[in-house]
């Protein structure tokens, strides 16, 4: 029987997983793997920085629901992946990272470009592997993909020393996966479903509080169906935007620190939270002790460790979000919809009284919310929006209006500035037929914008709207509110960089708008160009603040709806 190298086995194993694209950067220790990659059945996108490669893999995974693949060399290549791995772990993004390692006999000797990759990434991954025997490559790759995408998804890292990549082995297709310590629960327990139904049918002010778990489990249809059947309002967290269409009459939008008043308050006043695929994050709950004080809780999640972590539920349900919501639908059967008109009228009153609002005057400073509403209006219905972290992220989530799942990509849990540009590239590589628009802040953009060179060279025509307020806007907002307007190190400078020239230098089309009347033209040009990446800079009002707002650690009972509430 003929033998192949460990590197060839690695590529074969990735092909076996039907990988379409890998994002990475070669280097000494991983070089053997890059040779057979030239002939691989999948595409390799050469990033400019490993952090970029990692976020590209994440963006690909968010957009497609498949496992994103990132490749890096040993040492700094691997350490540069730590942020994307930590990001993917927080947001449950299925990813497999492959890192080269110095040859086995040099491991532990402080060799050139050596870092203890598995040690460093242990708390930043769902699991990781250090391969010492080329025969392990096939089975470990198969296990890694299985781990990444099943149960609560997450990143898995495989560290392979150079000599293992060069060693020879006889290839065998990997057999069935057996991991005695990994048996995620998929089917919910029927008794729990019955208990949940009992609570729901006797509730007077129920809300469905749903998040990223819905998107990952493909549970949108089951969610919509159950919400309609039982007549229950639906609140979607930052991670769950698009789980139910924002135009759906039951949808209340995002809750929490910058959530809609009606969504946040509905949870506060609720007598039953039906929490599915959420983790009671501090940005949602505010002060947990005063969160939803009247509510009983049904908490359904695929990760049992999330249940009871922040709030002890009356009914815990472990399982897949889609199966749970289908189970609730089946359990509801032909019961009539809940008769909760009074609750609905209260919510509608909050919606009427406290809508999102901004004030764009014809000749006043450009408001970011105005740009977003125009962008939403003019972009394709199924456009994918990718955001960084900060004010622009909150405005995008508030104003976009999501109609389908997997149209919203952002860094939720870790709050990784610089996520948008590379993640948008990954999303576009996975969904080349859809518009992919990065909504970015100027602070975020300057962290990872060099990946636009990747986009230009690799012909991945993403669109980037830079909301330029010449500041770390959210930091500035907090300094305004809580630090006496002492703007310490949050000013990015008014004139630099020149975004148009910067975009052009990186092979993109650059444009700029700073007046409301110029927005439509800029947006339509930006959306038209489809053969190159585009950067549109919008010079927006640097004093605009994100509202509503619940100050960090405060009670969700006190929602600041605008500057007049300060």
């Amino acid at each position, binding site marked *: 029987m003929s033998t192949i190298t460990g590197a060839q086995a690695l590529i074969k194993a990735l092909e076996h997983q039907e990988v379409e694209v890998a994002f990475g950067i070669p280097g000494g220790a991983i070089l053997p793997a890059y040779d057979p990659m030239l002939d691989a059945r999948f595409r390799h996108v050469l990033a400019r920085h490993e952090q970029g490669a990692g976020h590209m893999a994440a963006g690909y995974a968010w957009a497609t629901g498949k496992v994103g693949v990132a490749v890096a060399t040993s040492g700094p290549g691997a350490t540069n992946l730590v942020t994307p791995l930590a990001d993917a772990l927080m947001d449950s993004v299925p990813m497999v990272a492959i890192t080269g390692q110095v040859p086995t006999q040099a491991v532990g000797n402080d060799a050139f470009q050596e870092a203890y990759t598995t040690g460093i990434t242990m708390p930043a991954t*769902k*699991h990781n592997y*250090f391969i010492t025997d080329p025969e392990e490559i096939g089975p470990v790759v198969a296990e890694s993909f299985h781990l990444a995408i099943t149960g609560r998804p997450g990143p898995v890292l495989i560290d392979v020393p150079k000599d293992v990549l060069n060693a020879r082995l006889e290839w065998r297709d990997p057999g069935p996966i057996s991991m*005695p*310590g990994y048996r995620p629960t998929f089917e919910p327990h029927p008794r729990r479903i019955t208990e949940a139904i009992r609570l729901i049918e006797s509730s007077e002010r129920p809300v469905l509080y749903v998040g990223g778990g819905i998107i990952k489990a493909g549970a949108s249809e089951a969610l919509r169906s159950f919400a309609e059947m039982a007549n229950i309002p639906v609140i979607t967290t930052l991670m769950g935007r698009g789980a139910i269409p924002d135009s759906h009459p039951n949808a209340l939008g995002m809750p929490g620190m910058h959530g809609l008043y009606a969504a946040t308050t509905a949870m506060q006043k609720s007598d039953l939270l039906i929490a599915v695929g959420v983790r009671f994050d501090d940005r949602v709950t505010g002060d947990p002790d005063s969160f939803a004080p009247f509510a009983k809780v049904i908490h359904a999640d695929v990760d*049992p460790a999330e249940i009871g*972590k922040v709030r002890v539920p009356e009914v815990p349900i472990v399982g897949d979000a889609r199966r749970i919501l289908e189970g609730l639908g089946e359990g509801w059967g032909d019961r009539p919809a809940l008769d909760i008109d009074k609750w609905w009228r209260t919510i509608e009153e909050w919606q009427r009284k406290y809508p999102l609002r901004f004030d764009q005057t014809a000749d006043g400073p450009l408001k970011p919310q105005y740009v977003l509403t125009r962008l939403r209006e003019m972009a394709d219905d199924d456009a994918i929006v990718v955001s960084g972290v900060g004010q622009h992220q909150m405005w995008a989530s508030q104003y976009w209006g999501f109609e389908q799942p997997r149209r919203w990509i952002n860094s939720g849990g870790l709050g990784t500035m610089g996520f948008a540009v590379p993640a948008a590239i990954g999303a576009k590589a996975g969904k080349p037929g859809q518009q992919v628009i990065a909504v970015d802040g100027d602070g975020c953009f300057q962290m990872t914008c060099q990946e636009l060179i990747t986009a230009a060279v690799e012909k991945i025509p993403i669109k980037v709207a830079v909301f330029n307020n010449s500041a770390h806007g959210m930091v500035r907002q907090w300094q305004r509110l809580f630090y006496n307007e002492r703007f310490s190190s949050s000013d990015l400078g008014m004139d630099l960089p020149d975004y148009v020239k910067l975009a052009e230098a990186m092979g993109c089309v650059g444009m700029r708008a700073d007046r409301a009347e110029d927005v439509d033209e800029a947006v339509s040009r930006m959306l038209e160009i489809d053969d190159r990446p585009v950067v549109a800079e919008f010079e927006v009002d640097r004093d605009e603040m994100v509202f509503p707002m619940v100050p960090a650690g405060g009670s969700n009972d006190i929602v600041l709806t605008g500057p007049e509430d300060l």
Partner: protein
Amino acid sequence: MNEQLVLSVLVEDKPGVLARVSLLLARRGFNITSLAVGPTADQGLSRMTIVVNAPELEQVKKQLHKLINVVKISELDPDSSIEREIMLIRVKAAAGRRSGVLELAGIFNATAVDVAANSITFLVTGAPAKLNDFLELIRPFGVMDLVKSGRIAMRREPKARKLKAVG
């Protein structure tokens, strides 16, 4: 006040598992009092007995369960489990004071495993409380060195079933 919990954790015998377990406990803010690891009767599996200070048992168990190499976790209630620990203790024992030391050691079934001109080293085995009692009583003689194995523990068989098995 944090409770001391005794967890018996069955893990796959793979490199790095101990690091994963201890890292996770540290990451979640749980303080390890003692940790003993050894092979089991099943090849490929090891048993860790972890004594941990943690505010809440369920979270510790659930977080540990997320580790891919952790196969099974049981909490051992001191009332229904056998707990043992080994201690090596070197006590000052110059010629004139040996008898007092040996008398106390005899009561605790401590075995002298090394005798020198001015000291005796004892091996003591037993429940953690017994070891602590011995330590407190021997302390006035002068403790020169001390090593504990960390606790190992096993659930007792339910009495009813044991009787049935015998009958």
